[in-house]
């Protein structure tokens, strides 16, 4: 990836992470860990130019769709959509408040740019299968990207969706699993081991890439490859660090669903600012 673009994506990821922290502190509740782990992927999806997403034409029928199946991580989606220009950034401080367009979990009827209502884990990939089937029926040459959690992959419905996607040879569908190794009650390997995860997706008929989900070169390579594969669905297993970018949140289970205090916010923003970036 050219260094100019990488710089830009790193910059966007930084802004997204800062906004996540700011909005969660203001809200007083919500989910930082799984928002921060997938922030680099979001920066890439919305700001690399790889997808057709245009805030000036949010109902364009030719737009690509990103479905956040792990809906609790909506702060990353809201921060990204605001940065992209889908709505004014002032809304971010209304997160989770009564009457806000930014609900505690994504609501497609309240928030511009949100493609699917989610929050009950395990459903987003099935919704994406439906979108991919619909796009194919109408000869729309578009991409559907579903973002899942690794804990979420324990839901039986995920595998029903996986089976149907390969059965229907949905080459327009990409699943990205945010494999941060944690869920709520602990490490995924201890709560409900899903390994070997890549083999599972492969055995369900998917092409699989395993990448470092914080490395823009690997994100770039895998997503470009995924979009070019047209005869079957592709799963990108993004190995990530839950809470990535905030030292005291990284890989700490407790930061799944807890908002930072004022003091913690300052420390977090400082960490994000100083996050060491490779080139």
């Amino acid at each position: 990836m050219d260094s100019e673009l990488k710089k830009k994506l790193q910059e966007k990821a930084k802004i997204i992470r800062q906004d996540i922290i700011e909005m969660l502190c203001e809200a007083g509740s919500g989910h930082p860990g799984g928002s921060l782990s997938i922030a680099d992927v979001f920066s890439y999806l919305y700001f690399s130019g790889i997808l057709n997403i245009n805030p000036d034409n949010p109902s364009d029928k030719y737009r690509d769709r990103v479905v956040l199946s792990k809906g609790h991580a909506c702060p990353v989606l809201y921060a990204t959509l605001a940065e992209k220009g889908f709505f004014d950034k002032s809304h971010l401080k209304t997160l989770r408040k009564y009457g806000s367009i930014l609900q505690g979990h994504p609501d497609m009827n309240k928030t511009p740019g949100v493609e699917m209502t989610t929050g009950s884990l395990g459903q987003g990939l099935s919704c994406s299968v439906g979108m991919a089937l619909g796009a194919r029926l109408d000869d729309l040459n578009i991409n559907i990207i579903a973002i899942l959690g690794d804990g979420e992959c324990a839901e039986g419905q995920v595998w029903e969706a996986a089976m149907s996607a390969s059965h229907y040879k949905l080459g327009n569908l990409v699943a990205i699993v945010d494999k941060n190794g944690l869920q709520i009650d602990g490490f995924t390997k201890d709560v409900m081991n899903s390994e070997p995860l890549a083999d599972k997706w492969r055995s369900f008929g998917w092409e699989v890439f395993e990448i470092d989900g914080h490395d823009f070169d690997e994100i770039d390579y895998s997503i470009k490859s995924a979009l070019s594969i047209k005869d079957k669905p592709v799963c990108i297993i993004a190995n990530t660090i839950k809470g990535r970018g905030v030292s005291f949140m990284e890989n700490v289970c407790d930061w799944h669903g807890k908002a930072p205090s004022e003091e913690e916010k300052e420390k977090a923003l400082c960490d994000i600012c100083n996050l060491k970036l490779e080139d």
Partner: protein
Amino acid sequence: MIKQDIKKILSSEDEKISTREAYGRKLAELGEIDKNIVVLDCDLSKSTRTAIFAKKFPERFFNFGLAEANMMSAAAGLATMGKIPFASTFGVFATKRACDQVSISIAYPRLNVKICATHTGISVGEDGATHQAIEDAAIMRSFPNMIVISPADGTETRKVIDEIYKYNGPCYIRLCRGNSPVLFNDNYEFKIGRGVKIMDGDKATLISAGFTTSITLEAAKTLEEEGIEVDMINMASIKPVDSEMIIESAKKTGLVITVEDHNVIGGLGSAVCEVLSEKYPVRVIRLGVQDKFGSSGSPAELIKAYGFDKDSIVKTVRENIPA
């Protein structure tokens, strides 16, 4: 007026606890007296408070991860082996994600599974609609063999858990996230199918359960100060409901108002209507979620916005009693 005989079961302490916390503590106590008790959860043990049991009896605790349907049928399997499974997750997932499993693996074969679901009602707050169970009691009530209990406070929760532990059959216990005042003291006794009348009056009947009972009681006290005396009933046992108590009170007051943190379709309000429309038709006004999805906000804001805060209850009584 607070009933004379009720005073001895009312708490005089100024204490608050959530029903989920009371459940978690009670469960850990029960675990000590019966080795057949097993506890199942779906990656929410810190929130449902089954973590207290898990810590004490790790070999009898099973975390199923994010797989509610699997957990419910596995609970049924454990019950066939003579175990006493308590299965916990949030109300939305226990009743909607695992709906058919609860119906076919648990209710139909009448297996001894105790489904203790937390985070019910819009009083969940900020998480919003996807995490607020407003239809759980309706779903569970419609399953044959299933009993449905919605305790009002920490004491009642403990007593309910004791009762359902002794009861052999499927039950759904509707617990809440938020703290609520402790209304009852240890003298209180819970019986499946029995309500408890806390206040006595003849202008109207107020019936509530769960999180809204303490709010309804406050409303009844305010009305009393205005000279409007009402019957105030706590009806934790939503199914079977205490028909006798409902009919007797309706005969006296002629106007019944139900209050619940649940959709007005299918829950306590409906249960009361079913009894009265068949046995003693009087007007019933159902306060609760008026067939809308929940939303994000603080619990207090939501309860007010959805129209079942203390003021809304008082106003409804005032405007509907005969002049």
